[in-house]
């Protein structure tokens, strides 16, 4: 039962202030010193490094572009009628009543636009 200690003095210690040679935890960059009784919990795992400003912008721009491309592609397909066809088909399918199989919630096995 050693989760004890002087609770009122429990102070977080940022990883950058941790003693040298003490690897930081996978999950924490700080330690509750009161609970840290003889426990160098650290692992050799690293923490994802934050890129510099330019690197951040590249990553954010890449995600933004990717999402916009997906949205644009879907929009073009829909305008061209391919999506509309699929939508119409799905709507027609959705007008039928799902099979009533008592004791199962797996309606999707039979239904959900694939009927």
């Amino acid at each position, binding site marked *: 039962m*050693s*989760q*004890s200690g002087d*609770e*009122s*003095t*429990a102070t*977080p210690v*940022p*990883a*950058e202030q941790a003693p040298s040679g003490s690897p930081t*935890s*996978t*999950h*924490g*960059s*700080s330690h*509750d010193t009161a609970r840290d*009784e003889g*426990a*160098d*919990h*650290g*692992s050799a*795992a*690293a*923490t*994802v*490094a*934050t*890129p510099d400003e330019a690197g*951040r912008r590249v*990553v*954010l721009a890449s*995600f933004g572009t*990717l*999402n916009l491309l*997906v*949205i644009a*592609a*879907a*929009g073009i397909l*829909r305008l061209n009628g391919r*999506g509309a066809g*699929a*939508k119409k088909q*799905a709507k027609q399918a*959705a007008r*039928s*009543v*799902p099979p*009533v199989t008592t*004791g*199962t*919630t797996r*309606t999707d096995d039979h*239904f*959900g*636009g*694939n009927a």
Partner: protein
Amino acid sequence: MTAPELTTTPEPQQQSGQRKLLPVVPALPPDMTPEPRGKNLMDFPLFRRVMKSPLYPRVFQWAVLAGFVFVGYQLLAGPDTAHQNMGTVLMWVIWWPLIPILFFLMGRFWCAICPFATINDWVQKVVGLERPVPPFLKKYGIWLIDASFIAITWADHMWGVVASPWGSGVMVLLLTTAVVVSGALWQRRAFCRYLCFLGGVAGNYSQTAMVTLRANEKICKTCTSRAVCYNGSAAVPGCPLFSFPRTLDSNANCNLCANCIKNCPNDAISVTARKPTQELWFMDKPRVEVASLAMAIMGIVLIQNLSMLSVWPAILAAIGSAIGTTYYPVVFTVAFAIAIAIPVGLLALASKVAAARGSEGIWQNFGRFGYALIPLDVAAHMAHNLFHLLSEGKAVFFTAFPLFGLEMPTDSPALLGSSAIQVLQFTLLALGIAASLYACYRIARRRYPTTEVHRRVSAPYYALVIALGLLNVWMFTLPMLHRV
């Protein structure tokens, strides 16, 4: 009515070599009574008005989306260190610990207001192709969820995603992209139903929830509306999670969005309060993949706990010396695989013992009794996260100081003392163990109404619950690391 089957139980061979049979025990057919309904909350005028209001759950969605944008901005553009970043604190110290509690209290309600679901709906509305969900996803979706949850946890340990605001931010961006693709391609909330790892966990935990949505079968039988609850109407969409309320018998795929309530012309949908974990006792068609997810979650909680304990380096060193390497990714992966395999293997072992004692095979037992471990899962998960919430909760205020140009306090971020937190953790675990034991008993009794048979079959599962429960109790007696 099915004729009672007869079972014989072989006794160990006598010294004389003769085989003596025990008295024949007539095995009764499984009990198939449906889950009882509790108090219908729709009888309360205020609750009814809220559920039928067009603002429900939209108001919550907007609020959560605003929070999500703030958290995302903080993660991607805020301070680099976790304990100074409000996004990290809000996400991993506040939201993540509260989410299993919410699942327990209100089922998958979070999924109705989740910002990813809102993004999915927007993309779908603007450019959605609304193609049918591929059969592959329908068939193996839950396995993909199992695998992705394990993979994400592994990646977190390997690359320290939780400890890095940027890493958490990139994870959020990856999920957003997946949701955009899913919303652009497929109908309804296919991502939430078939791909979201948190949705999988939500589906699992919400089966212990205290509220549930069901339809009145008697009224539904006479309905002429062509399943408007499922298909939707011009004003309100159909069920986003592909569930047909009339056949709904589990919380796993209902997010309480109330679309069916608004669409139903007969007021046949009820939202009822019920005993916690009750749904597990009445599960007639258990699925192995759901039981596997429950066991995987147990393994994940195990590794999450272990990696924050003082014994962790010793465990890694022992594994390293056993496999002859100290290379962290290899050693950790082995430790991770063992932690996941322990609950799965123990459940399989218990199922093998039970199979020899009952009339169902190993995998049928694995599926059926795997559900009984969910309460312990939920309790262990809550107990683990309760530590982070209560011992680091004040960090949410501390990290707000720099946003207003003030210096961040260096006081303890604890909301409660260690002893008080530990008492709460053990109380939760005790409740989880008791609920799992009771679920084992109820599941066995329902399947094998004959007292002697259900005792024989459930005994190995009682042992399993106690073993896993004690393992968790031991872990919570040790000092644990903070998350931020």
